[in-house]
Every structure is written in structure tokens, then in C-alpha cells.
């Protein structure tokens, strides 16, 4: 489902030329798998996710998702790809703090010309799925960490993406919230969603739900 070949990503490094952040010769991830990516800090995990998620374009090589070479898409199609195939979760949630739960989630639907009732229907559905029913009108910054991550999750899955990308999603959550999130991620995975998680959390390590584990070091994949 995800096929990576000869992937390289470098950035200009001041005056000295270019700094290679990542180099992955080959990486395949099959559809519907739950993938854990680990590695020491600065090893390129987030960068790899950004390339798969269409937030960055590789310097060279290809990223193919569902037989589509996303590394060559224009911004228009890359935005569409992010919107329709990818859901993101971040360590710091990245909600718009002053907006309500409902509005934060609905923002992901604004690019579509939906009627307000259709939009409302879809938001209500995901709110129920992540267990935030009754909190739609809460302002994001008044939520607990666990609730915020649930809100972000609802926003991530509202367009029913095929891949969910989560970068340290549990780092700011307490034990109970971590378990709840894991439960939710697993339930989406069971329904066919590919889940990529970057995490140091022991919760994911040696967990039976993990189908594939990728270990990175200095921008390279060192173990599969």
C-alpha cells in the first residue's frame, strides 16, 4: 500500500550545502497494518511521517500510496491527498484553541461544499465515535489532554482516511487517556485503516496489536 523507494530528503544547511535528513532505500507497508516507528531523537521519524503524509516532498526517490506517486503531486492534489487519504495526530494536539470542539472538527470539512446540516451530521458521527458526545460546544483550550487528543482524532478521521499518522500521540496524556486512545486507534485499525505511530511509549512496544515495527537511526531504517 505504501511503497518507498530510494527516498532522500535533505534541507539546505546554512552555507555549507545540504544536510541529508533521511535516506530510505526501500520500505513497504501493507494496507490495514498497525505500524510502530521508533528510534532515538533526531533520527528522522517525524520527517519520514511528513513524507508519507504529503507535508513534504522528497528531494529524490518516490513515495507511492495506493498506487499513486504522491511525491510528484502539485500542491492542489497534495492538499487533496492530505484531506482524503491522511489523518494526522500530533503530540501537542494542534487544535485551534479558541474554537469549540465542533468547529475544530468541522474545519476539516470546509474545503467541501457541504450544506450545514450535512456538515453537522458528519461531525456528530465522529464525535460519537471518539466519545466526545455532549462536549461539542466546549472550547478546545478548556478540555483535558485526553479530550483534546480525542477531538484531534475526530478531526483526523472525519474524511475517512486510509492512513492515520500519529506522531507521539500519547506523550502528553495520562495513563487512562493513553489506554483510551490506544483502544480507539485499534478500533479504527480493525476497520481497515492503516495506522502509523511514532512513539517511545512502552504501551506500544511489544503490544500484540503492532503488525510492523520500524526502527530508525540517523535518517535510516535499521530494522523492520
Amino acid at each position, binding site marked *: 500500500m505504501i511503497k518507498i523507494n530510494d527516498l532522500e530528503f535533505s534541507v539546505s544547511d546554512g552555507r555549507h550545502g545540504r544536510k541529508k535528513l533521511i535516506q530510505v532505500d526501500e520500505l513497504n507497508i501493507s494496507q490495514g497494518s498497525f505500524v510502530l516507528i521508533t528510534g532515538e531523537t533526531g533520527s528522522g521519524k517525524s520527517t519520514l511521517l511528513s513524507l508519507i503524509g504529503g507535508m513534504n516532498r522528497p528531494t529524490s526517490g518516490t513515495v507511492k500510496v495506493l498506487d499513486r506517486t504522491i511525491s510528484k503531486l502539485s500542491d492542489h492534489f497534495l492538499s487533496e491527498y*492530505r*484531506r482524503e487519504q491522511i489523518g*494526522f495526530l500530533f503530540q501537542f494536539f*494542534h*487544535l*485551534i484553541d479558541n*474554537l469549540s470542539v465542533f468547529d475544530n472538527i468541522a474545519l476539516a470539512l470546509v474545503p467541501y461544499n457541504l450544506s450545514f446540516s450535512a456538515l453537522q451530521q458528519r461531525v456528530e458521527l465522529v464525535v460519537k465515535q471518539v466519545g466526545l458526545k455532549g462536549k461539542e460546544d466546549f472550547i478546545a483550550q478548556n478540555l483535558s489532554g485526553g479530550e483534546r487528543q480525542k477531538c484531534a482524532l475526530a478531526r483526523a478521521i472525519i*474524511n475517512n482516511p486510509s492512513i492515520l499518522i500519529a506522531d507521539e500521540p500519547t506523550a502528553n496524556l495520562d495513563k487512562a487517556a493513553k489506554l483510551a486512545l490506544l483502544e480507539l486507534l485499534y478500533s479504527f485499525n480493525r476497520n481497515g485503516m492503516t495506522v502509523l505511530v511514532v512513539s517511545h511509549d512502552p504501551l506500544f512496544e511489544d503490544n500484540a496489536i503492532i503488525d510492523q515495527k520500524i526502527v530508525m537511526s540517523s535518517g535510516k531504517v535499521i530494522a523492520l
Partner: protein
Amino acid sequence: MFNISFIKFSLKMMFSSRRELIAVFMLYTCLIFILSSFFLMKNSLFNAFDHLIDGKPELIIQNMQGGKAVNTPLSWADEILEIDGVGQVYPRLFGTYFFEQGRDFFTLVGFSLLEESYDSEIQSIIDGVDFKSFQNQEGIYVGLGVQKLLRSHYYTDSFSFFYGSGKKLTLPILGHFSKKSQLETNDLILLSKQSIRLILNIDENFATDLVANIPNPAEKVIVATKVRELFPNARILDIVDLKVNMKRNYDIFGGTFFALFLLPLVAFLILFYTKISALTEKGRSQVAILRAIGWEIPLVMSWHLFNAFFIASLAYMVGVLCSYFFVFTLNAPGLSQLFLGQANLSASFNFTAVIPLETLFYLFIVTVFPYTLASVIPIYRSSIVSPLEVLR
């Protein structure tokens, strides 16, 4: 792209950072208020001037002695009438009177019920005067500024002029001039020729000056030359020229006003600069979030375009409405002095509502559009970077 939910969420996001919004809105409203006040005042003033200028072509003839205008003998009038091209000659009686208690000067203008026509200047002044009130008694007709000043010194029904050595002439106040003619009549007192002769001590055989009516304006120069031949010490003035000069004296681009005008302009440029240069961290993260969840660059930009346009238009409307109220209802306290010079009677002026639609439209174009477009530049800049650079 501009569907209901887009507009709805744009507004929601905009109002979510209220403090920034209010700051920008206030600054912008102030700027538009000042610019708009300026234009409304300028327009109202120039409108009044234009009204003044379309008088008939006439020459004013004054008697000069030692470089100073003195009273003109009435005998000149008969000689001037002989000149070809001259229609009529009217003697005029006017002068200034110092009102000691009020420490201000009044302009006295004499008229006679018996004379049927006047020069265009006096005609435009006396247009609204109710002459019936003069038929039975001697009295004065006063400008609004005079009326106000007299009232503050408790002269409500009559006023006493002092002349000669301690003599007093008390005349009833029969009425006041309309607000419409205030630019000309504010410091004016209209009274009979007998009274003005008495007060200003003008002999029966003299007038303050003469106005010669020349039906064919093309002959003005020839007539002027002939008058000069007859009376080498005469000064000959053209009424139209006089009024154009007067307009020029109200030079609005000079001095203080310009300084005041520059201040908001500078503030505007600063605002402009900050708008172009960078977004706040919060603003950048909002853009990154929207980009991450799949908003395309044009959508993110139109979101901000819409926000900026909304704010700027709202500020425009509030600014213009406030300035309308400020200029036409409050009569521009503070600012009008900059236009009209020191605060004396002859300079005070009531701004009559003239709405320069074209100018206001122009103001809209030059303030709302640059701001709107400028605000999109930083949005574009942060749209094109990878959202992940911001969302670590």
C-alpha cells in the same frame, strides 16, 4: 469557495483572536475617520466657495490714498456710468466694527430698501432676508456667529453701537441669516445706510467703494483701463478673482493639517509593514493546522482575504459614519480650526452636509484594498512552508 460554512468558520476564527482584532479595527477606524473627516470638510467648504464664485462679472472700484483704501466719492459713480459697457454702478457701504465686550470684529453692510438691485455679493447675502421687517423700523439683521456672540453678552433683542465720542445707537435685532450662507454671513450685520453712515462716520457724498456692473464680461478689461485713466488713484478689483484668492487662502494642504494628516499615515504604514512582514506564532500555527488538514493554498488565502476585507470594510463604515457625525453634527471641533485659521468670528463655519460619494468611494479603494491585499502576503508566505515546520 465562498460557501456558507467557509464564511461562518472564517468569522469564527477571526473572532477567536479578539484582542488582535480589536486593535487592528480601532487603528484602522481612526485612520479612516481622520481621512474621511478631512474629505467631508474639504468638500463642504469648497462647495460653499463654489456657491460664492458663480456671481456676475463685476468690477470693484476703490479710492486709494497712500496705499490705503479710503472712502470713495459718489461723484465717481456718475463719471463711470458714462463709460461704454458699464451697465450700472452701485455705491457700497460697509466696514468693520469692533465689539469691545466680545473682543471681536463685526462686518457691517449697509443696504437701502429703496434701491432695487445690488451687486451679486450683497444679493447673495440678502437672498434670505425678510425685508418686511425693515419696512416699519430701523434695525439690524445678523449672522449666526454674531447672534451667538451677542447672546452670550445678553443682547437678545437689540444691540447698541457706540460711535463718535461716546454716542450710542441702539437698534433692534430683526432677524438672522440662514445657516446656508454662513460662510459669508457669519460675522455680518446688515443695517440701513443711514445707520452705517452714522456708526462708521461716512459722509453723505461718499461710499466705501463702488461696484460697476459690466453686462458683457469681455469688456471688463477695457472698462478697467478707462476707469484707471479717469481716476489714477483708483484700485480696480475683479470680484471673481477676489473669491478665487479667498479659496486659495484656505489652503488645506499647508501646515498643521498636513502634519496631523501624516500621523495616521505613518501608523497605517507601520500596520502595513507588520502585516506584510510576519504573522504571529498563533497565526502561523493556524495556517499550518489548516494546511495539514488539507486546505489548499488558495483556500487559506481567501480565508484571510475575507477576514481582512471584512475588518477593513467594517472599519471603513464605522470611520465614515463617525466622521459624518463629527463634521456635520459636531461641526468638527478641533479640526475645523486647522482648516479655517484662528478661532475668530469670521473663521467659524458650519459644515453643511455634502456627501462626496466619489471621494468616499476613492477612499474605500485606497484604504480597504491595499490593506486586504497586504494581509494576504504573510499568509501566502506561511502557506507555502511545510506545516510540519510549525507543528513540531
